């Protein structure tokens, strides 16, 4: 881990997640200060704006600005939701945050509740990490017992209830309005916006939703000051970011780096490419971000603006590394299958289009491609893009567009020769079971 780590700093695996450990690391100091000094909400939001913190879930929306959208004088409950429904292939940072530093998230949420006047909150946790959900419930119990949650927090007149809500196998619930529906006990089908959650969220009440890592950053920002946090990164890309690196690297895992760190540095931290093979491509921000070929990504720094300039997205900071043994058609086939499988079925372009995309890629991969299939893929992806209620349609279209754009020749080869450009044996060797020796 980088020396600059904040959220992941000072952790010792499963041994240091409890309240006492967090407090020993300086945890809850920010909250206690706020409560003691009765820090005005505006001051907190100003500090967040100064920090340049952008949403860590993928969209990168400025957090301070989002918090300022919550209506001030709303009679009745206002809600806070934490999005820990981490299911975008390649992303596994929130699991580690909740596993090793759950109180940072809780503290961040309590501070958020204070700043936005929220009375209730839910942390929506990916169903597949059920053990983490249970641990988070334990952490909540600790916080309640310590007077940090519930009625009259730390003896003040500020009250905030926080609960954990688990998913049960639906990627779409990572979409914030699908998450709200799911909390309400419904299918995770996204809502049309407007109205936005800030005016019509959980049970129709004003609601702010942030990613786990975003909330976990908040206590550190208030501890060190917004400007200091900003300076860890670069302008408009403040602070540290956890990068989940997976795929063909020697040491996959989470690395917390300053935004703006060169990609090459992350690759080196992750032990470089396995088996001495060459880097072929990287998906830099979770499976929905367009793939970038080695030559482009090797010149990139890891921050929102640089990756965007390169034609992709920093997204959730999930870096999927593929070496030369990878068949790009097969890689896309698996991703297209995923989006087809995870489409919620609500709106037409995604419900019908994701299956079409998958079937065409599947056909190409299995030697049944036809001339014109690449154009068909581009056209179908184009017809999904920007036409759906939520971003899943775009998420399904963008990988297709990225893979076809940068690796079109591999697709053409497949169609023409009815087989992969990369020999089967090479692919097979590259995708063997690999577990880092340190695990």
């Amino acid at each position, binding site marked *: 881990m980088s020396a600059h780590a904040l959220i992941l700093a000072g952790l010792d695996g499963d041994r240091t997640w409890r309240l006492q450990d967090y407090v020993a690391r300086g945890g809850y100091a920010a909250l206690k200060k706020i409560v003691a000094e009765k820090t005005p909400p505006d001051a907190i939001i100003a500090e967040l704006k100064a920090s340049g913190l952008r949403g860590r879930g993928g969209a990168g929306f400025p957090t301070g600005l989002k918090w300022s959208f919550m209506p001030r004088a709303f009679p009745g409950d206002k809600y806070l939701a934490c999005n820990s429904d981490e299911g975008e292939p390649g992303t596994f940072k929130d699991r580690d945050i909740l596993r090793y530093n759950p109180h940072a998230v809780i503290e961040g949420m309590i501070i958020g509740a204070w700043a936005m006047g929220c009375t209730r909150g839910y942390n929506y946790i990916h169903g*597949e990490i059920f053990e983490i959900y249970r641990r988070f419930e334990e952490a909540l119990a600790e916080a309640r017992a310590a007077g940090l949650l519930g009625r009259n927090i730390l003896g003040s007149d500020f009250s905030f209830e926080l609960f954990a809500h*688990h998913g049960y196998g639906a990627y779409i619930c990572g979409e914030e309005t699908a998450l709200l529906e799911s909390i309400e006990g419904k*299918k995770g089908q996204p809502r049309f916006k407007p109205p936005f959650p800030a005016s019509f969220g959980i049970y129709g009440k004003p609601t702010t939703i942030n990613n786990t890592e975003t909330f976990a950053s908040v206590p550190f920002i208030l501890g060190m000051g917004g400007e200091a946090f900003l300076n860890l990164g670069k302008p408009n890309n403040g602070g540290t970011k956890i990068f989940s690196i997976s795929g063909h690297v020697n040491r996959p895992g989470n690395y917390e780096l300053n935004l703006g760190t060169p990609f090459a540095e992350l690759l080196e931290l992750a032990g470089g490419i396995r088996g001495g093979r060459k880097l072929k491509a990287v998906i830099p921000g979770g499976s929905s971000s367009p793939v970038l070929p080695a030559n482009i990504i090797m010149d990139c720094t890891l921050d929102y603006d640089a990756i965007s300039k390169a034609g992709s997205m920093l997204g959730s900071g999930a870096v*999927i590394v593929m070496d030369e043994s990878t068949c790009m058609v097969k890689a896309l086939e698996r991703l297209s299958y995923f989006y087809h499988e995870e489409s919620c079925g609500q709106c037409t372009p995604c419900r019908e289009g994701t299956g079409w995309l998958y079937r065409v890629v599947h056909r190409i991969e299995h030697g049944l491609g036809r001339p014109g299939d690449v154009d068909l893929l581009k056209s179908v992806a184009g017809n999904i893009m920007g036409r759906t209620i939520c971003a899943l349609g775009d998420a399904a279209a963008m990988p297709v567009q990225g893979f076809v754009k940068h690796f079109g020749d591999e697709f053409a080869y497949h169609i023409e020769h009815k087989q992969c450009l990369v020999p089967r044996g090479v692919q097979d060797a590259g995708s063997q*079971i690999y577990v880092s020796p340190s695990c």
Partner: protein
Amino acid sequence: MILTPETLQEFDREIAKYPAGEQRSAVMACLALAQRELGWLSPETIEFVANYLGMAPIAAWEVASFYNMYDLAPVGRHKITVCTNLPCALSGGVHAAEYLKKKLGIGFDETTPDGKFTLKEGECMGACGDAPVLLHNNHRMCSFMTKERIDQLLAELEKQ
């Protein structure tokens, strides 16, 4: 009563997380609890949960059929879900699944004749750094599943 009083107590604990009148929010948790106790969700179980929460049975059915960790048909005593999504596949997820298929003699969505094991193909579990990854009965995640670890796991489950 098709569920034990202990499970119903857990239902109530889940319901208490939500404001009065919004008990429907607990449907995902209650379905998961019911499935944990009964192994799968029969229509009767889903209707029971719906009635417990005062919601239309079809609304509970929508939920149960939407989220893929709910089982709408009986599964083996040990349901093993292997992630084969791209990041896992790059580090052997598919090979781990193939190894399991060979060892258990079944394919995805099949159950061994003795009713002990069901194998499922999973989507991203948010643990790509731990590849190969699999879930045992939804709630236990097994990381870094080399062939040796798969052998160990199966041996352990075989004894249960």
